[in-house]
């Protein structure tokens, strides 16, 4: 398995009036052409990790890493201009909420086209054909009509699929999906994850799925990193999640109610134990 992304000792910190606070405290991992899940609660640093890879953390936030390498490119050494040719084209990112991440004054089709023409020059007819094909690929019925709609005219699930279409149309080698389904219904969640899964299995795209939902991560990923307060507390194969050893992971698993719930009270994490969140 070829290595797509190599991260060593990644740290992200922000200044406060009590000095710099580290939100990601030296995490390391490598990613091949596979699906990696990063799970953790709010404030665990999982989203910051995703953003740091794309160098999306603005000042005064500070990102340092011994190594941040994508396909042999040292990302830490890239200028802002060089990063622009990486973002979207080679590594792209799906954000959580379609309501806030889509441009309200551009039609869906225009926005998808923008993602495409930013990175390559194509004749107009071909652009149109690719937009329609992409919308079909994310299972939108009647793509011709939807391409002409504005974001407020589509539902949440559809908006999220539009956003995924936008991110997948430049055919990136790595997709970072930050809570791609948490704004959606259970019934739509599975569909959206299937859509993301498709280019992974067909084209060997790498995927980092960031989520707080242990269930969906264990279902869609090959490997899982569990994060808490900026450190990786556990790494395991997705199938092995039920046998996780770290008390934090076990606590998270136990805190979820099940469909056949017989417990009278759900166990609650003792937060003092990890001095976090």
């Amino acid at each position, binding site marked *: 398995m070829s290595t797509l992304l190599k991260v060593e000792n990644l740290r992200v910190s922000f200044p406060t009036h009590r000095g710099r606070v580290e939100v990601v405290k030296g995490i390391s991992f490598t990613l091949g052409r596979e699906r990696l899940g990063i799970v953790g609660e709010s404030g665990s640093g999982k989203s910051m990790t995703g953003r740091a890879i794309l160098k999306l953390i603005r000042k005064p936030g500070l990102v340092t890493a011994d190594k941040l390498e994508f396909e042999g490119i040292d990302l830490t050494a890239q200028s802002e201009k060089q990063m622009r040719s990486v973002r979207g084209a080679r590594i792209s990112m799906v954000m959580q909420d379609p309501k806030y991440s889509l441009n309200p004054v551009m039609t869906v089709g225009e926005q998808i086209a923008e993602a495409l023409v930013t990175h390559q020059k194509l004749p107009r007819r071909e652009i149109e054909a690719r937009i329609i094909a992409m919308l079909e690929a994310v299972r939108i019925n009647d793509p011709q009509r939807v391409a002409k709609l504005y974001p407020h005219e589509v539902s949440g699930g559809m908006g999220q699929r539009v956003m995924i279409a936008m991110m997948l149309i430049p055919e990136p080698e790595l997709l970072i999906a930050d809570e791609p389904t948490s704004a959606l219904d*259970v*019934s739509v969640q599975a569909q959206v994850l299937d859509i993301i899964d498709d280019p992974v299995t067909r084209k060997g795209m790498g995927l980092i799925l960031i989520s*707080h939902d242990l269930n969906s991560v264990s279902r869609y990923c090959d490997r899982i990193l569990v994060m808490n307060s900026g450190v990786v507390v556990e790494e395991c194969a997705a199938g092995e999640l*039920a046998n996780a050893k770290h008390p934090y992971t076990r606590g998270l698993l136990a805190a979820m*109610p099940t*469909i056949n*719930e017989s417990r009278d009270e759900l166990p609650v*994490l003792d937060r003092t134990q990890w001095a976090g969140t």
Partner: protein
Amino acid sequence: MNAIDLKNLDISYGDTKVVHGVNLAVAEGESFALVGESGSGKSTILRAIAGLAPDWTGDISVLGRARSHGVDRAVARQCQMVFQDPYGSLHPRKTIDSALSEPLAIHGLGNRDERVEAMLKAVGLDQRFRFRFPHQLSGGQRQRVAIARALMLEPKVLLLDEPTSALDVSVQAEILNLLKRLRREQGLTYLLVTHNLPVVSFLCDRLAVMRHGRIVEVAGVDQLKHGQLVEAYSKELLAATEGANRAAG
């Protein structure tokens, strides 16, 4: 006497009718769930009962008393609502103390100081949070405040609109435990809207599956636990949840 009685309830937003002929009876002391996908009208029913969606026809009665279309103080005393998003449902410029005292002031109840203090204790919040602002609290703490505010008037019925879906799983567990304990201690009736079936299994006695503004099926929680839902759509919903759980377990 039923805690909530809905008869032939139709609810519209402008020209669009979103709930069609719903009949539902929730017994006193019962915990009842409305489940279904977004747009199925489940939250709209809660809003109509709370008086936030005034464009309805049919009958709504709370604890045997028919609800009027306008502001109904008598119903408000008996029936309060907790909203989904603890980040959006608290006034950002009001301290926890004033948020909790406001319902008391509106309904002319005295003893405010002690009531606020007791309520903070009941929802498991330390007294030091009393004079803080919502932005100084975490999501779970805010949801505790929202529940406390709903309980300030000592209502008998709580309308819960996705009370835990904006929270992390471990915080969700805390809030679910809190809701279960409060119901036991105060003999509350819950009408809960959620799309999370495991939450229903933990917290509720019965559930109604909704789709396109209609109730498709009403079932006991045991039927849910043993996968014995009858209607095709209910089974679909159950399958979507179970698929996810099987992979984890």
